[in-house]
């Protein structure tokens, strides 16, 4: 059984149809990359899966681990094992990083009927993850993302992912705005989490990230539809030929769904 099954998903934002029939199957252990030009609907797809309420699903269904994902609130989806690394992580003044992360972890554990983790058990695990992301523990005493550089914010997203151990990790343009060093660290964190139990959906505009996180499948999203799917080599082709050729092809050969 697939971990994630998206069938004929149509999504509207503020009256505009952004996703026009997406079909996608992701099995545990697989890494899929969603690529596409600006405005193609990549981020919308990520946000819908993370259950952002501003997006209205007009048709289709999404099953996560056999359950109706679209019926879930954001916190339920998170507790079931969906995690989205934000393209623009939010600064939350007044809430400490460590406190936030432990609250989140315990909310998820509670949902699953597990015991809450106290500070004594949490800290050693947390420190290990900090090390993986090469993050300074001092940052964690600050408010969530407050005063973090762009790279620190993105690393903080992957840190949260490493602590929360989701079944499905969605990376929403995690590479944007990262220099090569930060990109390597982020990729190292992500790769350390690849496992047969976990699936990943890597949403990106550029092929660059996929040199470090090599996907099993690449899907090209154009104007709300997946117009081509292939292996990792498709990303390289895109890098060389650009989205324009695919868009042109899509216009000729794939007017409806794929």
């Amino acid at each position, binding site marked *: 059984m697939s971990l994630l099954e998206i069938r004929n998903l149509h999504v509207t934002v503020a009256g505009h149809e952004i996703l026009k029939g997406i079909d996608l199957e992701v099995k545990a252990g697989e890494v899929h990359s969603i690529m596409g030009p600006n405005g193609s609907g990549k981020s919308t797809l990520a946000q819908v899966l993370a259950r952002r309420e501003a997006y209205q699903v007009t048709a289709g269904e999404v099953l996560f681990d056999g359950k109706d994902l679209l019926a879930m609130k954001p916190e339920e989806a998170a507790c079931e094992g969906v995690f989205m690394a934000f393209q623009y992580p939010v600064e939350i003044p007044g*809430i400490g990083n460590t406190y936030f992360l432990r609250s989140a972890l315990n*909310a*998820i554990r509670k949902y699953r009927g597990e015991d809450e983790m106290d500070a004594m058990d949490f800290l050693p695990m947390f420190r290990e993850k900090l090390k993986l992301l090469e993050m300074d523990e001092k940052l964690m005493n600050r408010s969530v993302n407050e005063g973090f550089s762009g790279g620190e914010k993105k690393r903080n997203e992957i840190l949260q992912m490493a602590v929360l151990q989701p079944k499905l990790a969605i990376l929403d343009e995690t590479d944007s705005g990262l220099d090569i060093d930060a990109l390597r660290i982020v990729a190292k964190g992500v790769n350390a989490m690849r496992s047969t139990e976990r699936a990943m959906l890597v949403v990106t505009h550029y092929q660059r990230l996929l040199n470090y996180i090599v996907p099993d499948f690449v899907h090209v999203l154009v104007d709300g539809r997946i117009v081509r799917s292939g292996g990792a080599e498709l990303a390289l082709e895109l890098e060389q030929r650009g989205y324009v050729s695919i868009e042109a092809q899509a216009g000729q050969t794939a007017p409806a769904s794929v």
Partner: protein
Amino acid sequence: MTTAIQNVENYLGTFTEFEKRATGRALPWLRQLRENAFARFCETGFPTTHDEDWRFTNVSAIARTAFSLPQKGTLHLSNRDLNAWRTETTAAQLIFVDGQFALELSDSSNLPERIVISSLKEQIMKQSGTLKAHLGQYLDTHRDSFCALNTAFAEDGAYVHVGRGRVLEAPIHLLFISTAADKPRMIHPRNLIIVEDEGQATIIEEYVSLGTGIVFCNSATELIAGENATVAHHMMEREHTEAFNVSTLRIQQGRSANVASHSILLGGGLVRNNVHPVLAGEGGECLINGLFVGNGRQHLDNYMHVEHASPHCSSRQFYNGILDGHAHGVFHGRIVVHKDAQKTDAKQTNRNLLLSDNAQIDTKPQLEIYADDVKCTHGATIGQMEENALFYLRSRGIDEASARRLLLLAFAGECLERMKSGSARDHAERLIHEHLFAASYGMPRQDVVDGNEQELQHAGSWEEVG
């Protein structure tokens, strides 16, 4: 004006009775002080919304109610009743029941030398010279009729005198308890706090209710901070919503004195909190920090009048408001920079979180600058709860109610962070948390859940209004 006149007649009878039996009636200076103040009150009556200082707060409910003074000597409280209101570590705790000092419930033993903490009444009876030198010297009874009324009925309250260079680490807790009132009752607590040169003290002035009934608490505090003195004053308003609470804190700051005023308004139906510091000596610093949290039909008015009377002083006003239901908040920040107060550095910030469509905030900066080399800034923001932040927390598994609470605590926490750490701050933190947890502030109402997701969607960006 008719209301005011009618009402003044009510007060005339009460005042005449009061004068016959008031402590200190034989002291000419005190008698004069009371009589002058009462005369001034009779001249002006209660303010109306035509008065610029009272534009957003209608006190006609106070003006038209016939209040009487509490009966003397009928205390039915025991130490057990007070357990819930005590704080952890204090240097002294003075308890006032319906405005009257309750010796048996208070504790001001074990004080170091040259620190006096007592009731004001005791000082009147002792005919204290310090009292005579300071009482009524600072409060503006001419401009503010509530201060005039308080002075007319000034008899009991707290007296704190910290001698030169004396340092009190733990806070002094002044707890004013209103008991059940079967008919409308008024009290006029009057506090005098003197911290001499290089002294240091923290004072918590807290108002609570035990039992219901209409109460009008009209308090006034004169706080004198000597040269280089460090004083923190915490005002905690936690009365029930039938209460009218008008309080005035008048601060007189000497050279290089550092004073912090923290006002936490959680309770009360109609509340007006005046903070009036005068930076009279060079190099003084004043922090005026506040948090007001309103729900239901609460009206919480914060009025500041910061007077820069000397050069090189700085003042900071930071107020955060959280308003839900039909609550109405007011932030009126007046800064007056006198002609000689060059190099003044005054800043004012008011941030508000409106959690319902019916909540209202009026925020008004008022700068009067008569010097030419000053830095004065002000800013106000009004916003809803940040939708992005809420989604971020929820996307990590934290349920909506907890996420909203976390964001509220964080917003309120800005006020706490401006307090020096210690038991006064811990006390404030505990009360704020309890208050925000007890009432489900900011939770989506049942009536908007009816398929109306819009409520959750309007963006939460801050809107500059001032």
